Structures are given as structure tokens and as C-alpha cells.
């Protein structure tokens, strides 16, 4: 039995016949290079490593091809040694370092795979070896895809798939000694692949990060901030998203609310640029921070002894308050920062644990989680939140004012002055609602019915109150005015409420399984205190219609947004290539294939220009005779030319190339010799309504023409 297994292994490892297909080798090399490029695009390889390995893979494939019949015997030991060195390097990368997150493993893994591919490329004489190269390129793509978070990765996928498919087809062609898959077969294969892939996609569950490895967290280019735990506006902290404008160089625009105060009169120009991407189990309002102190124009966080608590446990950080939260479900969110962002850790309520690449984190009493480092492009952190959404019935049954932990009522009911009109309005709207939940819903409904949404509002005059202007003035505003108005009304009738700012879920990309959060997704809403259930979020802006709604504009806006988000450059490039190929192919199909065809077309062109197109079924000789007749050429020049053409086409008597060129030139020169045909002039209509030739009067008829058989003598009849 052992001998049999050994024989089987030996048989399996016996070198196969040399592979002569250049197409297969190029495709395999292309697939590997595409994998290297994908890893480089995701930052897993440096430019030096990517460039060097690309060159080595191509060189290795070339050497393997050149020595395919007689592989160099000394290559295998060297390659085995190189692969061993790569593995040793890989394990050294891991030992002595804490496996902090998945990316800690993936980067050295990508380097290891690349070096193994390089070593393998120098010893691929047979088809089987090239197949292993193709399979190896798949591992590179998998590692790169694990880090990909935007749709642009699709370019590398398409390149790799193209090389892979061509390689597989070339493998079949080589194995079958020239077999080819026809156009119908290609279409059927493509359809089968797409259907199978779609079926697998539907059947398999959505990707889920395993819990055995640390959740993704990466500091990116973050740098420590001079004021740990501080936000913009705190002295020397300079890291903050800056307000932009359409004319600005970045056109990004940042939300000014992610700071230590929220100026409800300012919004900035928030563009469509993606600021971060989120992978989450469900869409949520991702809270950045909350404000409790309203002064009539700005929201701030009231100073308090427990304003900020430093968490020094290291990743994962347990958030105070969140650890005690009870909920049946949890929501795991991973945030991939794309643009420079405020040092806030966004999260869905209620955050319980945070995987963050820093030694410490700051948690404020207002449920804000502040990072000690700046968050720039490439930063990644993961938050696990407890999902605890009580039903309206549960909220309606909450306890009364006696349940007031930590001075909630005292802190979240303060107003800068008495809002008499707002209070009266709120009381009138909520007169019939007995509990807090219904009062909140009534006020939201009133706001939705009596206000309009617009970001284009006039600036406030000095000393003017935002809420008074919004409720009793223009009744137009954006999320900050709307939510602030609701907050003030609720506070005026004794309901604790705070202002929350963060992001709403942006468009969901099913391929990357990420929500693309754009700058304009920054949002403000309110959180209402319910005893026993804590802070519950309400978004009054959601029910406020646009200031100038119109179905057409909405549709056009959505369509423009969709069209604008399409990758037009690659689509345009592909369409351009397809169009050019179609035009070239059509022209080639129309191009005369033989000299005789060109000459015949030249004769037809001459006749067509002279108004005498060639009729269907008319032979070239007959047509040429007609042209001679039209040209008055008794010598029969056109007929002579046609005879030469027909002798070539049907008799195989081709003239010499020089003679053929002369003949074609003569035909072109003779095109103008056939005169254009004139149209026949129309005769005028006669007075009797009959068509008469010009110059002849219409015949008169004094009696009807005789009928045969009636017995009357006819004119001219013999007696």
C-alpha cells in the first residue's frame, strides 16, 4: 500500500509535457500581474515590491518558456530556497507582534503570496504548472479584495477575470491541439458563469467578520492631537473638517457641527464626496456627539466634572454606559475613513465596545467618543453597539419625572430665555397627548405640516433667535433649525431633550457591502429622554417636505445622482473601444476583397453618378454596354473593362498587379465620361382635362364611338 501511494505521488509529480502555447503563458503572467497590481492598489505592497515582482514574474515566465523542453536542473533548488526564505520572513513578521487586526496578517500575507508566485514563475514548463500559477493569482486577488472598499476595485477584478478566462480557454485549446470555443459557445459559457455566480451569491449568506480575530482597526495617517480628547475649538486642536465651497480646491466641505459647538446658522457647502464607508449589519443614524446647552444660536456641551472620561484599557475599549445596556441584538459597524475627519468615533446607539488603534479613548457624558489622534484617510475602527429600540407602546408606558438619574431633567431642560410663543405653540399642539411619546410625535407632525426644508435660507440678523425665526418667521430651514425647533418646544413643555449630530446612512453598495457616507449625509436630530429606556432618537427632518418639491425635479435629481455616480471613464473607454471595433469591422466587411470587386464597384459608381444605377440581375457586361450606349462610346471601352473584370472574377485570369492598378486608375478617370441622364419634361394638361402632347389639339368627339353589333353603319364601312 505504501509503495502504491508513493507510486501515485511520483506519478502525480511527474513533469508534464512542455507547454508551447504563448497565449496561455501571457494570460497566466497577466493574471498574476493583475493580482500584484490589485494588492498594490489596496496598499498591501509597496511600489518597490510591486514593480520588482512584476518584472520578475514576466522574466520568469519568459525563462520557463525558453527552457520548457529542458528545464534547468539548478532552478528548482534555488526556487525552493527562495520560497523557504519567504515563509521564514512571513512568520518573523508575525512573531513578536500582537496580531492586532486582520490587516496585520493580510499585508505580510500578500507579500508572501507574491514572492511564492515569483518563485513559481521561473519553473512553469508544463500546462499543469501554468494552471497552478492561475490558481495562485486567485489567492492574490482574494487578499486584495479583502481590503477593497470601493467600486474602483472592479477595474482590477475585470482585468484579472479577463486574463483568467483567456488563460483557461488557451488551456483548453492547448489540451485539445487547437480546439476553440466558438462565438455561440462563448455566449453560452458566459451566461452559465453569470447564472451560477448569481445563484451562489443569492444562496450564500452575507459576509460576516469572524469573531476570532480582532475587528478591523487601523490608525491610518493619524497623528496625536495636542489636546487629548478635545474637539475643534478647544484651543490648539487644529484637526477638523474644514468648511468648503464649490469653488474651493477640494470641493469637499465639512460639517461644522463636529466640534465643541454647533452654530445653527452655518452649514457649509457639503458635497457628494465620500467621507467614509461603513460596513454595518443594519443602517442606523451614526452619532458623532450630542449637545445639551442651547443659547439661542449655538449648541454647546455644558461644562461638567464628568465631561470626559479617559479610557485606558486599550483596544477593545469598553464604553461606560454601553456595557450595561441591555438589548437582544447587537450591531457591529466598521468605519473606513476616506477623507480627513473630525476625531469623533461615530457609532450607532448604544456603543458598547470600540476597537480603535490607540492606547486610550475619551468618552463624554454626552455619549461622544473622542479619539486622541486625528483620523485621516485609511483610518479604520470598529464599534459594537447594542440595539435596543423599544416599541411605541413601551415608550408610552414610561415612568414620570421621579425617574431622573444624574440630573437629566436639570441639564436637558434649560433654555436661554422663555420661549413664550414656542411654548404656547407646543402646548396647543400637544394638548390632547397624555404621554411624552405622543407629544413628540404630534410636534414632529406639526413641523412636517407647517415647515419646509431648504439649505438656502437667509442669514440670521444679529441677536435674532434661530427658533423664533424658524417657527414664526420663514418656517424654512435645514436639519439644524428643524431639530433645534423641536428640541426647544419639547424643553419648553418639560421634556428632556438634547441635540445629536452625526451621519445618516448613505447609498448602499451591494458589491462592497458598504454604505458610502457622503459629506452631505451629515445630519442633526434630537434625542428624547425616556425613563427606563434612555435617550431615544427622533428625526423631525424626515417628515419635512422640500421647500420647492416637484416630482420632476426629484426624479431628475435622483437620476442625475445615479448617473453622476457611474464610473463613466471606464464605461466610456469600453464603449469607445467597442464602437471603434464595430466601425472597423463594418468597414472591413464592406471593403472589396479582391481586385475584381473593386473594379466592379468603380464601374457601378460611375454609372450611379451618371444616374444609371445597376439593376438587380444585370450582369456587369450588360451594365457596361448600357454605359457605353449612354456615353456614345462605340468602341466599347466600358465593355472591355467589364470583360477583364469578369475574366478575373469567374475565369481566374487575374491581370498583373501593375496592369490592375492601371485599370483601376483608368476606371476612376472614366467616371465623368458618362453623361447624366435628363428627366423627361411633363406635358401640360389640356382644356378638356386630357393629357395632350404639346402642340397638338385634343381630338374632338361629336358623337359617341360606335358599338359593335348595333347595326349602325360605321364610318368607312363598305356599302
Amino acid at each position, binding site marked *: 500500500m505504501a509503495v502504491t501511494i508513493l507510486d501515485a505521488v511520483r506519478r502525480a509529480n511527474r513533469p508534464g509535457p512542455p507547454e508551447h502555447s504563448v497565449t496561455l503563458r501571457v494570460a497566466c503572467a497577466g493574471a498574476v500581474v493583475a493580482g500584484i497590481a490589485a494588492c498594490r492598489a489596496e496598499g498591501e505592497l509597496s511600489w518597490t515590491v510591486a514593480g520588482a515582482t512584476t518584472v520578475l514574474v514576466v522574466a520568469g515566465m519568459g525563462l520557463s518558456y525558453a527552457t520548457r523542453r529542458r528545464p534547468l536542473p539548478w532552478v528548482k533548488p534555488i526556487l525552493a530556497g527562495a520560497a523557504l526564505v519567504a515563509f521564514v520572513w512571513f512568520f518573523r513578521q508575525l512573531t513578536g507582534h500582537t496580531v492586532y487586526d486582520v490587516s496585520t496578517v493580510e499585508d505580510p500575507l500578500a507579500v508572501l503570496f507574491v514572492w511564492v508566485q515569483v518563485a513559481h514563475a521561473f519553473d512553469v514548463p508544463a500546462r499543469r504548472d501554468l494552471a497552478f500559477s492561475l490558481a495562485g493569482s486567485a489567492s492574490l486577488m*482574494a487578499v486584495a479584495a*479583502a481590503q477593497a472598499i470601493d467600486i474602483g476595485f472592479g477595474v482590477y477584478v475585470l482585468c484579472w477575470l479577463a486574463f483568467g478566462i483567456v488563460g483557461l480557454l488557451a488551456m483548453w485549446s492547448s489540451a485539445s491541439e487547437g480546439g476553440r470555443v466558438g462565438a455561440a*459557445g462563448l455566449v453560452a459559457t458566459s451566461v452559465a458563469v453569470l447564472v451560477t455566480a448569481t445563484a*451562489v*451569491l443569492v444562496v450564500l449568506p452575507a*459576509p460576516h467578520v469572524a469573531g476570532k480575530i480582532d475587528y478591523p482597526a487601523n490608525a491610518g495617517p493619524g497623528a496625536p492631537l495636542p489636546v487629548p480628547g478635545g474637539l475643534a475649538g478647544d484651543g490648539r486642536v487644529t484637526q477638523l473638517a474644514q468648511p468648503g465651497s464649490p469653488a474651493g480646491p477640494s470641493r469637499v466641505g465639512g460639517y461644522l457641527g463636529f466640534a465643541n459647538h454647533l452654530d445653527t446658522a452655518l452649514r457649509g457647502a457639503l458635497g457628494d464626496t465620500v467621507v467614509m464607508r461603513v460596513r454595518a449589519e443594519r443602517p442606523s443614524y451614526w452619532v458623532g456627539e450630542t449637545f445639551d446647552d442651547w443659547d439661542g444660536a449655538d449648541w454647546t456641551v455644558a461644562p461638567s466634572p464628568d465631561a470626559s472620561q479617559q479610557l485606558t484599557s486599550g483596544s477593545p475599549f469598553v464604553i461606560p454606559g454601553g456595557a450595561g445596556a441591555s438589548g437582544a441584538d447587537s450591531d457591529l459597524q466598521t468605519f473606513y475613513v476616506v477623507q480627513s475627519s473630525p476625531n469623533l468615533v461615530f457609532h450607532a446607539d448604544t456603543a458598547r465596545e470600540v476597537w480603535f488603534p490607540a492606547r486610550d479613548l475619551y468618552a463624554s457624558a454626552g455619549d461622544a467618543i473622542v479619539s486622541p489622534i486625528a483620523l485621516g484617510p485609511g483610518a479604520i475602527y470598529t464599534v459594537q453597539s447594542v440595539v435596543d429600540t423599544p416599541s411605541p407602546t413601551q415608550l408610552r408606558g414610561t415612568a414620570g419625572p421621579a425617574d431622573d438619574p444624574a440630573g437629566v431633567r436639570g441639564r436637558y431642560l434649560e433654555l436661554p430665555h422663555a420661549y413664550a410663543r414656542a411654548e404656547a405653540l407646543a402646548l396647543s399642539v400637544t394638548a390632547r397627548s397624555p404621554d411624552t411619546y405622543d407629544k413628540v410625535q404630534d410636534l414632529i407632525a406639526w413641523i412636517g405640516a407647517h415647515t419646509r426644508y431648504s439649505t438656502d435660507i437667509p442669514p440670521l440678523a444679529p441677536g435674532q433667535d434661530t427658533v423664533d425665526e424658524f417657527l414664526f418667521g420663514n418656517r424654512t430651514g435645514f436639519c439644524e433649525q428643524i431639530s433645534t425647533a423641536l428640541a426647544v418646544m419639547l424643553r419648553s413643555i418639560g421634556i428632556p431633550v438634547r441635540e445629536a449630530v452625526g451621519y445618516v446612512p448613505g447609498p448602499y453598495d451591494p458589491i462592497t457591502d458598504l454604505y458610502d457616507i457622503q459629506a452631505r449625509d451629515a445630519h442633526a436630530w434630537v434625542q428624547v429622554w425616556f425613563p427606563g429606556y434612555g435617550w431615544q432618537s427622533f428625526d423631525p427632518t424626515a417628515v419635512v417636505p422640500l421647500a420647492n418639491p416637484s416630482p420632476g425635479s426629484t426624479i431628475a435629481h435622483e437620476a442625475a445622482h445615479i448617473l453622476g455616480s457611474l464610473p463613466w471613464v471606464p464605461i466610456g473607454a469600453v464603449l469607445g473601444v467597442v464602437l471603434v471595433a464595430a466601425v472597423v469591422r463594418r468597414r472591413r466587411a464592406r471593403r472589396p476583397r479582391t481586385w475584381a470587386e473593386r473594379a466592379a464597384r468603380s464601374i457601378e459608381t460611375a454609372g450611379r453618378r451618371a444616374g444609371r444605377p445597376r439593376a438587380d440581375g444585370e450582369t456587369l457586361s450588360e451594365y457596361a454596354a448600357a454605359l457605353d450606349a449612354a456615353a456614345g462610346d462605340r468602341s466599347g471601352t466600358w465593355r472591355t473593362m467589364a470583360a477583364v473584370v469578369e475574366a478575373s472574377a469567374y475565369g481566374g485570369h487575374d491581370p498583373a498587379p501593375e496592369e490592375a492598378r492601371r485599370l483601376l486608375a483608368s476606371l476612376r478617370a472614366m467616371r465623368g465620361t458618362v453623361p447624366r441622364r435628363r428627366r423627361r419634361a411633363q406635358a401640360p394638361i389640356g382644356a378638356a382635362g386630357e393629357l395632350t402632347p404639346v402642340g397638338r389639339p385634343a381630338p374632338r368627339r361629336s358623337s359617341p364611338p360606335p358599338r359593335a353589333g348595333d347595326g349602325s353603319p360605321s364610318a368607312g364601312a363598305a356599302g
Partner: protein
Amino acid sequence: MTGRAGARPRRSGRVRPVRPVVPLVSCVAVLLGWGLVAHNSGAGWVQAVGDVVAGVLAVGLVAPAVVVRRATLAVLGVPADGTAGLPLEVPVKAGTRLRVRPLDPPGPEAFVGPHHVPAGTAGGEPGGTEYLTLLPARRGVYPAITLEIATAAPFGLLWWRRAVVVELSRQLYVRPRLGRPVALPVGRHDTAGDGDLRAPVQVGEPRGMRPYRPGDLRRWVHWPGTAHSGELMVRDMEGPTAEPVTVEVRLPAEPEAAERAAERALGTVVALVDRGTPVVLATTEPDGPNVGAVGDRRTAGRRLARAVAEPEPTPWR
């Protein structure tokens, strides 16, 4: 399976994979590795690309079974006669690229079907008629031929094969090899027993021409006929009437021994026919004993191709 020239399909075997372990294990390993990365990373791109890879691998593993099931192979005519141990060319035409291996009669495998011929290489026209080589090991009569067709289209990941039986429009007679003849009977006038050593004699009326055989005299050459046909022709004269020689062939049951006996029988008959001796051949065929005159190699070959061993007598009960 379709056929032309009357080669009709009769039945076909099941579609089976060829050495599926390595391709299957490799594909499963790739998908498992991919799934591991997807599970650990939770990345949507990994799943999206992995689905396409799974689709490609699935199609590559399963599509050849469909292709071989629907493959068309036409046998365009079959030679009427062949010789055991000598190759026989059979024109075939396939609708798709197939690897064909004759099973019965056996033969080397070959690729038939549309293919790409690289520029500058010698070879048949792509898409034209191709030939399959049969190498019958033994004599016999073949009303049909069994072929094994296989393909791995479109990706060459896994070969699938199927056995098909193609009925022939006419039976293929494979005669035995020309063996060493047994001791031939002495001729009537050969009282000295040296008939074999004498030169052939031609007497009587001329009855035509025949191709030259070794031993013919130079003066028998018919030059006009030779110039006309391009082959050396000799006058064929009526020979002296001789008594027919009956060659009785009793084949043993053991196939190899029967083959050797048939070869010797053919050699003997051919030697007699070449000597001008009328031959009566007595053989046992599946339908029963067959005794009849044979005048040429072809007829003798066919009779011996049909010959079988005598059945064992049924014991009395």
C-alpha cells in the same frame, strides 16, 4: 451521435469524468481558501469575486459533461475490408473538438473537430474531414465500431468521456494476417514433387490481363496494357484445368490459437489461388458450416473473418 453514409448511432454509454480527483480537490481548495478569506475579512468584494470564481470553476467542471453529451460525430464511410494488425483510416467529422479513441476495434486516440491551425504549420484544413485510425488486433466482422469521445471544453479543467457505438452502413471485414501456408498438395503432373520449384506455365487461350506477380516471365508482359494502366500487366491465359483443393478450417476455441490458425489458412488459400488452383474453403460461421469456392484474396479473407470455432457438441442426456 449522428452519422452519415448510413453510420447510425445505436446506443451510447454514460458520461463519466476522467481522473476527477485532482481537478475537484484543486477547485475545492481554491473555493475553501476563498471562503476562509471572506469569512475572516467580511469584505463584500471577496464574496462578489468569489462568486464569479465559483461560477467559472463550476462551469469548467460541469460544462464538458454537457458538451460530450451533446457532441456530434459523423463517420463518413468505412472501408469494406481491413487486415488485422494493419491500420485502417476512417473519415470522421465532428461538430466540436473531441478526443476520440477507438475501443472496438482499438486504435490510437486522436483529436477531431474544428480547430485552429497556426499559420505556417502543416496540417489539414480546420473544419474539414479528418481521419480516425483503427488498428484491429484480430480478425472479425464489425457491424459497428465503438468509440470513446471525450472533451474538457471550454476551460480544460476536467475531461468527461462517453462511449458510443456507431453502426456502419456496411460491415467491416477484418481478415487475418497472411500466415505461413501449410504444406500444399502436390499438382496432378507433379509426380516428382517439385511443382513448387517449376516456373509457372501459361497455356491455352488468352483470357485477359492481370497484374504482374512475382514469378511471371518477362515475355508474358503485356506492354500496351502496362502503358495504359501504368502498372505492370501480364497476359492471363487459360490454365490447365486442375482439381479443386478443399481447405477445411477448424478453428480452436482459444482466440489466439484461432487467430494463428486463420492466418495459416489464409496463407494457404492465397498460395493456392496464386498458383491457379481452384480452392474450396470450408469454414464454420455463426450461421453454420459454409463450403464454397474462393477465387481471390478478398473473398478468402472475408470467409475467414466470419469463421468461428466449431461449437461444442451438445452432450446426450
